[in-house]
């Protein structure tokens, strides 16, 4: 009995010692929810960044794919979790800026109801078309689409997807919001029908379409960023090609529940920043056509401002879009 008591006492002492030591976050693996299926663009960026963040945090950052409802299922789970820093999420333009206008019954408020942590990277958007589509450049495309709005078909990867969100903005800016839109289950099938010429055009992330453009299976009219992409240096920006108002990027960034302790946020921001400064991580992200975030965008305030800015830009077009 006495031995047992001694043993227990020793065990308790050890447990306490451990507890005191472990006051610095994190003491156990951090779950990063990716609200899409494994293998998609957001998942890939999350895995690359999480891989390096694990080294800085000294604990594994585990990716959990919780797909559903355009990514809102996973984000809902993350931002309603206990704000202890052990559940965070990698969301994107759609889940953080577009979702409130896309899904009227959304269960979270990306502007006021969550803690932005930082931007992980931006992905340029391209306007692409089947290779034998009549218009030769972006100006001709704009004229053609306006004149033939009853005839052309646009493909997108489903309501709430990046391709839907960005193309809805394009159609609203061109004044042809009602162009025939064909929904596909993901970018792959949509791209298949664009390559085979069933569909006329779509807007999508550079990582999905760049190889098809290089191979000449589809053609790219413009890239909706401020600068050309090294992945496709021949494709002009929308400003160069005559449609400067169409500026949109599909970014991915990290957020957590509202009420995260400041030291936890600081740890995560520092780990993200360190990952983005690492040469290996940088190289892998750049290979994907990712635009690395500015110092400002890597901070919670800068990321929150970006979410708000794009939400304001997209909301009118998305709310009015035919659903």
């Amino acid at each position: 009995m006495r031995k047992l008591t001694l043993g227990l006492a020793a065990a308790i002492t050890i447990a306490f010692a451990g507890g005191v030591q472990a006051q610095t976050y994190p003491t156990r693996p951090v779950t990063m929810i990716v609200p899409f299926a494994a293998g998609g663009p957001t998942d890939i960026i999350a895995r690359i960044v999480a891989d390096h963040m694990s080294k800085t945090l000294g604990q594994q950052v585990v990716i959990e794919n919780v797909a559903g409802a355009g990514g809102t299922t996973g984000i809902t789970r993350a931002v309603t979790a206990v704000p202890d820093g052990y559940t965070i999420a990698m969301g994107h333009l759609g889940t953080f800026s577009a979702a409130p206008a896309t899904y009227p019954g959304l269960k979270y408020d990306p502007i006021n109801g969550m803690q932005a942590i930082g931007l992980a990277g931006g992905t340029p958007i391209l306007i692409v078309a089947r290779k034998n589509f009549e218009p030769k450049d972006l100006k001709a495309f704009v004229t053609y689409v306006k004149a033939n709005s009853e005839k052309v078909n646009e493909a997108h990867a489903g309501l709430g997807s990046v391709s839907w969100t960005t193309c809805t903005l394009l159609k609203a800016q061109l004044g042809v919001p009602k162009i025939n839109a064909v929904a596909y289950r993901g970018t792959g099938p949509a791209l298949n029908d664009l390559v085979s010429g069933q569909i006329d055009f779509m807007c999508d992330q550079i990582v999905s379409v760049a190889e098809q453009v290089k191979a000449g299976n589809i053609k790219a009219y413009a890239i909706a960023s401020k600068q050309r992409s090294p992945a496709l240096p021949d494709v002009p920006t929308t400003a160069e090609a005559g449609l400067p108002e169409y500026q949109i990027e599909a970014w991915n960034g990290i957020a957590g529940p509202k009420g995260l302790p400041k030291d936890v946020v600081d740890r995560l921001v520092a780990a993200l920043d360190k990952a983005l400064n690492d040469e290996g991580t940088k190289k892998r992200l750049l290979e994907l056509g990712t635009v690395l975030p500015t110092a400002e965008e890597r901070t919670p305030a800068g990321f929150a401002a970006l979410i708000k800015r794009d939400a304001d830009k997209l909301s009118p077009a998305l709310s009015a879009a035919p659903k």
Partner: protein
Amino acid sequence: MDMIANLTLGFGVALSLQNLALCFAGCFIGTLIGVLPGVGPIATIAILLPITFGVDPVGALIMLAGIYYGAQYGGSTTAILVNIPGEATSVVTTLDGHQMAKQGRAGVALGIAALGSFFAGCVATLFIAALGAPLTKLALLFGPAEYFSLMVMGLCFAVVLARGSILKAFCMIMLGLLLSTVGTDLETGQERLTFGFPPLSDGIDFAVLAMGVFGFAEVLRNLENPEARDVVKAKIGRLLPDWSEIKQSINPVLRGTFIGGILGILPGNGAVLGPFASYTLEKKIAKDPSRFGRGAIEGVAGPESANNAGAQTAFIPLLTLGIPPNAVMALMVGAMTIHGIIPGPQVMTKNPELFWGMIASMWIGNLMLVIINLPLVGVWVKLLQVPYRLMFPAILIFCCIGIYSVNNQPVDVAFTAMFGLFGYLLIKLGFEPAPMLLGFVLGKLLEEKMRQALIISRGSFMTFIERPISAGLLIVAVVVLVIALLPSISKKREEVFVE
């Protein structure tokens, strides 16, 4: 010849010690997860993805591909032994495979499944090597209209799957179609049949439905009458097929390989149709169709070959075009991207060692799978002697783990339990779950492709008839239906449908 040079390059890559080891690891893991009900290749590849970070891209993809086609081998084991299809493609194997197991021929069924899969895998690998690039064009010929017509044809096959009344089978197909419409509408984003219940907003997962109506329901049925349950007490019999059984299976294997291989190339998971189409064909041309559903070896050999051929040719659109035809291939795209290879039409020329190395590794992998699987047949069959009181909790636990791993949603497990009760009810009332699952699998694609085709054609149904491939497929569908529904046309109808 280019192909010889290319294959030499490929084997040079695939035969390196490291890649051989990775290929073996992939095949072995694939076999195991195939055997575990519910744990599918998607969840496994997603979990193992980070482990491959340290390996070079070719090795990583060789291993991940091994997991995928290894799972197709392993999947037939659970279908045959305990009547649980882990994947949509092994639903058909339960029909005759499990009957064979009940008759004490589990070893023969497992053996022929492994041998048929090996043959199909080898042929499909050669097929990819020789014709991969030109066959890509086939994938591009299939637009939404063609795909819709293909699905219609598939549904007509489903009627033939019935072991009992056609009317009941028809009802089950309709129920399957109806279940497939649950969830968020793809075109409008409206929720349908979800009753405002959020977990239903993405529809019902195939694994949830299949584990429920097959796995859980089967357990319930077996518990009802412990003495008569299938698995125990069945005599084991021979472990491997004998010469006469192999001879009987050669033609079904050849036909299954061909059908599965062609359907596997199609975008949008055409591989799912392969086993169903093969089974239908075998039953149609058999001298005595009444044996089907009662342990006909052709009903295992054909579909299993089709399944594996399709699993391999599904790599064609991914490797030659960079466009994934199904969810597993989409994950492979992710794996390639993470490893710095952006999939696209130029992978073949820019990364020849990856392209040909993977193809060579598939052949090696198939050989490994036969070597892994044939000795395991004895082990699996012995599992049947495990007392059922130990077996059924194990089945249930593995099913639950598998279902949870699909979406990380606890509510999915509860749904499976509900479908289990429903499946038990179906068994009691004499309804077949297989046609329902086919309707469910095809329903989503059927609706999606029909609406895409109609949006593109501005609502004109003529699009399905004006396009030659689509029209051809619809004609086949009509012919199948006419033969099925007009008894006077064929005296054989009785033999084919009523057993």
